[in-house]
């Protein structure tokens, strides 16, 4: 009996240790933008899920492709049906780590480098980007701007409309994570 209790205590302790210092959000912002003479594209969602593990310097992100909204409804339909195939590949995920130190318990903006694997449309690519993490009370606020090209993720664009979409799309990510 005692042994079982002890084992359970050990387990709980290690789990607590493993999951400590985590920050999470359920309404992370992701937007991507393209501007060409022919067409403007804007798509945004506030339904991203993100976790930052401060101790391990790990972070993960997941967002539903169908959650992106466009000002033009037809564009949103094409995005889901023809380009991202969201029925087949419903999520985009990021899994990685950041390099750079966050001073414990002190508010401020810290510049970090985020590195990891971005998965969408069934393709996983390593990405690296500069980002900032801001500590504000019990929150960690992550912010990053980076570029991706649709072709890298096997998203084929017909030549007829290719010049309407920028070769490399600007992506904005904003996550306000609360301590778990």
């Amino acid at each position, binding site marked *: 009996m005692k042994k079982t209790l002890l084992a359970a205590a050990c387990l709980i302790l290690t789990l607590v240790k493993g999951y400590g210092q985590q920050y999470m959000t359920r309404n992370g912002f992701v937007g991507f933008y393209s501007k060409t003479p022919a067409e403007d594209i804007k798509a945004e969602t506030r339904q991203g899920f*993100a976790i930052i593990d401060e101790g391990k310097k790990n972070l993960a992100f997941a967002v539903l492709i169908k959650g992106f909204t466009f000002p033009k409804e037809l564009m949103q*339909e094409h995005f889901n049906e023809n380009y991202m195939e969201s*029925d087949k590949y419903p999520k985009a995920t990021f*899994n990685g780590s950041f390099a750079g130190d966050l001073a414990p318990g002190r508010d401020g903006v810290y510049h970090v480098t985020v590195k990891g694997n971005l998965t969408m449309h069934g393709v996983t690519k390593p990405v690296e980007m500069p980002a900032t993490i801001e500590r504000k009370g019990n929150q960690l606020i992550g912010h990053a701007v980076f570029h991706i090209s649709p072709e890298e993720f096997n998203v084929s664009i017909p030549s007829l409309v290719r010049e309407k979409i920028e070769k490399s799309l600007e992506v904005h990510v904003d996550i306000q994570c609360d301590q778990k």
Partner: protein
Amino acid sequence: MLMRFPLMIGLLFLASAVVAQDTTLLSQVGDSLTNSTKPMPVTGTFKGIYLIQLQTNETIAAGALNFEIQHRFGQLNSGAYQFFGLDNATLRLGLDYGITDWWTVGIGRSSYLKTFDGYTKFKLWRQQDGGGGMPISVTLMGTISNYTQNFPDETYLNANYRTGYATQLILARKFKFFSLELVPSYIRNNLVPTVADKNDMVALSGGARVRITKRMSLDGEYNYLFPNQVVSTKVYNALSFAWEMETGGHVFQLVFTNAQSMVPTQFISGTTSSWGNGGIYFGFNIARNFNLTSHAKKSVKY
């Protein structure tokens, strides 16, 4: 037992260490994403608001305008002198406008009997994916048509006699690679040729779209007019097939059908040629979408 105890603790530590790796972080967000996902409306059940002749459950987005060209050549069995129908043509031009995302109005003019038509269409329910959502999309459509062709020996034909109405309840469901719709119709023609013919008719139409590639699909529709409603002329049920291709804001369809008209009050109850004797019309549909609102045109600011 005592010997195994430290080993057990060690294993536990090891296990929890493995569990706490970054892959868990990903599965954690993945799980919470999956768990919190609410049913979402299904989009793109059909590519356009017209399947071939029949309307679909789709409506035009708020502030967008759809320009529809429906073109049918003459009958295939009209012989070599008529170049198997290609010398003749029937055309319907239509404009469809989205007042809101769920309310569309449209007007059309077709060369068949010089007919004007107008309709209004309401998206009542949208199919939702995910558990517990609405299983089908439901759209209500009401249309009115008036043919203006002169018949010198039928001077009694006034505007009232020339008018017809059709009301359709469009039930549609999108499956993974194909979409189906079932459309009960009520049709009213103010004037019919003989007393034996019915002014008020009911019909049941079915339509399907099968996706072959991301931008190509095959469409089919069949309009069943219940028997003994039109008796003075021999009418056939309209059966149509189309090969559909989409590029950007265009939808293009190559059509084979035995219906010459493209107006619901005419093609459902008044199709007089049949597939059986080669009374087939070859043709095409082109739909072009325009965004009229300024917020949709210029939306990106750097």
